[in-house]
């Protein structure tokens, strides 16, 4: 009698790629709740619309590539990309913005490079940057947080929101407004204290920006959930946040009119926490070793601060992550771990002697 022959190891742990991806999606829920609470139904609509678009476009490409649909769709990677992009887009932006961004992310940034595992750039961020450059008006129209809505106005309800999204009409003037980073950037000549007094986005905030601080706390909570489930190591996010904090401490200059803002403002505004835990932790496009992730995270934190403080864009996670994606193989070359029994770390390109 012959037995089946299989190679070792025979035992296998419980984790699967699909479960990893599902957990990432679940970990975005605190952030999504905070976004929906403070900015209305828009983000939820973005996420659902992006997911639908992503699954359909991924299925089409798989069909063209003659790959088994269920097997590849079952890894949930397209859904993760879609959820992250949906969360990053301004609430109540027109439906075609979401669709174009998602199609670009899934088809161009991921599948054209070979699908899951082969994309050199973070697909969600590629989609985001394409949208930001192509449709600056739609991409910079944010919603006023709930706490700051003018008397008598409220966020549109769910049906109303759907109508706004699909009619591509701009929301009513009163419910749109600048983000704290945007607002801070465009108030020149005022000291930090003056800005904080004048702008209700800051004056009514706990420590960073109305609504935004909750959104960032939500993503921080999601990040901690993923960390405790060991989906990734602490190195990337901590290095990124620490560098961002350090940079803002160094250039704080006690809050003069030239100051790029406080440490708390930078850590808990914009996409800081989402970037740290959900974007730069994308393993496919990041560096591979823990030391590499320290460098990679620090580089992103550094670039984010540089662009926020002296660049043209109020936030910079997407640009910083894409730039760091370029550098990842280079960083990898110099950050191999020291192997057991070796005294030195080696370079990835080191050649064996002939």
């Amino acid at each position, binding site marked *: 009698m012959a037995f089946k022959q299989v*190679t070792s*190891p025979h035992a296998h742990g419980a984790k699967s790629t699909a479960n990893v991806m599902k957990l990432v999606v679940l970990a975005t829920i605190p952030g999504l709740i905070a976004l929906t609470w403070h900015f209305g139904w828009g983000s939820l609509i973005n996420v659902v619309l992006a997911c639908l678009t992503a699954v359909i476009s991924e299925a089409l490409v798989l069909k063209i590539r003659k790959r088994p649909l269920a097997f590849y769709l079952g890894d949930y990677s397209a859904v993760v990309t879609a959820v992250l992009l949906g969360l990053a887009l301004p609430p109540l932006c027109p439906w075609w913005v979401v669709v174009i961004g998602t199609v670009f992310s899934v088809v161009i940034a991921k599948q054209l490079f070979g699908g899951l595992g082969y994309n050199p750039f973070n697909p969600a961020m590629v989609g985001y940057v394409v949208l930001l450059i192509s449709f600056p008006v739609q991409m910079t129209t944010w919603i006023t947080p709930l706490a700051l809505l003018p008397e008598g106005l409220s966020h549109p309800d769910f049906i109303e929101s759907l109508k706004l999204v699909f009619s591509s009409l701009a929301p009513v003037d009163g419910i749109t407004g600048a983000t704290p980073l945007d607002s801070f950037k465009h108030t020149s000549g005022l000291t930090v204290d003056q800005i904080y007094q004048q702008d209700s986005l800051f004056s009514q905030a706990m420590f960073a920006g109305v609504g935004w601080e909750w959104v960032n706390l939500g993503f921080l909570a999601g990040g901690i959930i993923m960390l405790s489930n060991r989906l990734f190591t602490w190195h990337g996010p901590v290095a990124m946040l620490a560098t961002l904090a350090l940079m803002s401490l160094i250039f704080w200059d006690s809050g003069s009119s030239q100051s790029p803002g406080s440490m708390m403002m930078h850590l808990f505004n914009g996409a800081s926490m989402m970037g740290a835990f959900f974007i730069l932790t994308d393993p496919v496009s990041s560096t591979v070793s823990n030391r590499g992730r320290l460098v990679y995270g620090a580089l992103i934190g550094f670039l984010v601060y540089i662009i926020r403080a002296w660049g043209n864009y109020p936030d910079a996670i997407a640009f910083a992550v894409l730039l760091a994606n370029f550098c990842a193989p280079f960083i990898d070359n110099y950050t191999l771990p020291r192997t057991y029994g070796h005294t030195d770390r080696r370079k990835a390109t080191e050649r064996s002697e002939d």
Partner: protein
Amino acid sequence: MRQTWVTPGGVHPPENKHQSVTQPIGSLPIPEKLVVPLGQHIGAPAIACVKLGDKVLKGQKIADPAGTVSVAIHAPTSGTVSAIEARPIAHSSGIEALCIEITSDGKDQWIALQGIADFEHTTPKTLLSIITDAGIAGMGGAGFPTAVKLNPGFHRPIDTLIVNATECEPYITADDALIRERAEEIIEGIRILSHTLGNPSNILIGIEDNKPEAIQALEPHTQDTGINVVSFPTKYPSGGEKQLIYILTGKELPSGQIPADIGIVCVNIGTTYAIKRAVVEGEPLVSRVTTMTGEACEINRNYDVLIGTPVSHMLAYNKFDAEKCSRVIMGGPMMGFSLTSKDIPIVKTSNCLLAPSVEEIPHNEPAQPCIRCGMCAEACPASLLPQQLLWYSQAKDYDRLQSHNLFDCIECGACSYVCPSNIPLVQHYRSSKSDIKKAEEEKIKSAQARERFEFRQQRIEQADKEREAKRAARREAALQAKKTAAPNSAADIVAAAQARTEAKQLSPEQEQAKLERAVSSAEMRVQKAQSKLDTAVASEEPEDKIKILSAALSGAQQKLEKAKTRLAEQSN
């Protein structure tokens, strides 16, 4: 408490050890036929020293060690040698190798055994030869001949003896059971080892803390012996030699070196028991403790199994259910290999026979793409980057594989275990390792061929040059001769030629002696040919060979006749 060190990485698969230690070590009925492979150890396979049909007793040597890195093989029970042929053996590739089959006579009758009660007054050299002759090779898995390990040479002084009782693989409890029941003999074995190594200053038994009974069993026997039982947290693969050395000493074994290079000898605890039996009782290694476990067998238990017992015999006795079983594994679920056939025998390195149900170890799911999540790197005990190694393995980028230290991979399988994409990483590494080794061999071969070719070219050129030089010299000489000898007449030339021929001719006495020598050497040749033919006939060599030899004989005889006639002519 002695200090221990923590290795990076590692995994915690479900231990599943309790099932097989509920009962004491049992024994199996003697199988009708036992199949004993000649190569159960690393090194040259032993050479059979019995013939088909020979009667053998239990413990009788049936194969001699072949060279230094080899050990003897003994009959596991009394009976008759019924086959010496290639059979499927316990090997990850499911290959066949030479085996001796013994048909048991059911008496299990031992040969006369003679042990050494007083090993302390026996020289290490004698002990080492006893260990080799008793057929002892590492029983933890690799099967390295123990005597070779215990003889590291003067340039490698040993200060630490590590006894590996880690047994970190899930399911396996063979060492655990052995320690629980035979701790005293194990300690005796360790003392013998220590004696052969010149009593190293540190003797450590490394054991995971999931075996409290075994630790307790060792304690009374280690008191005041200088032997330390060191327990450390359970984590796979702490039992790997390199890992254990680090855990117990904080030293890393430099890449490419053996433990003796840093003053350490590492021996499996089962081996120390076998050594005690061999030295004190004179009993060669003919059985070992093997764990029979897995849900596809009704009985899970440790057995004292005769080497050569077919797996089928063991499975049947433990009520194996083939329907339930996903695969039959020799060894543990992490590093064991699946068996291709039921007829494969238990060998000296078989610590476990695992027959898991499909629920326990499901069939492999198809691999998904690597997302470089890095869980493998977190699990790797050697601090490698398995995801990068996979990448370069697929690309066959041998330079990158080597710069990422592929050859420091111990193939423990921790990376594949944690991989969420079900990628058989270890399989990729094994294949790349053998590809690289092959490529290197080819490189050496082609370098040699090139060298040979270049040398030949050089030689031909040299010869051509010399020939040309000679020719030139001759031409020169001829020219000179023409110039000086031009006036000589034809008569002179003839006279000169005659003079030369005369000079060449021998005197009659010389001629006589020469012919006599020829006769005697021809006689010798005839004698030689005759004796060759005789031996060939006696040993019943093939007919055509005998024909050739007799033809050679008659040729030699004719030559002798000729030489004799010439001598006679000369004498006349």
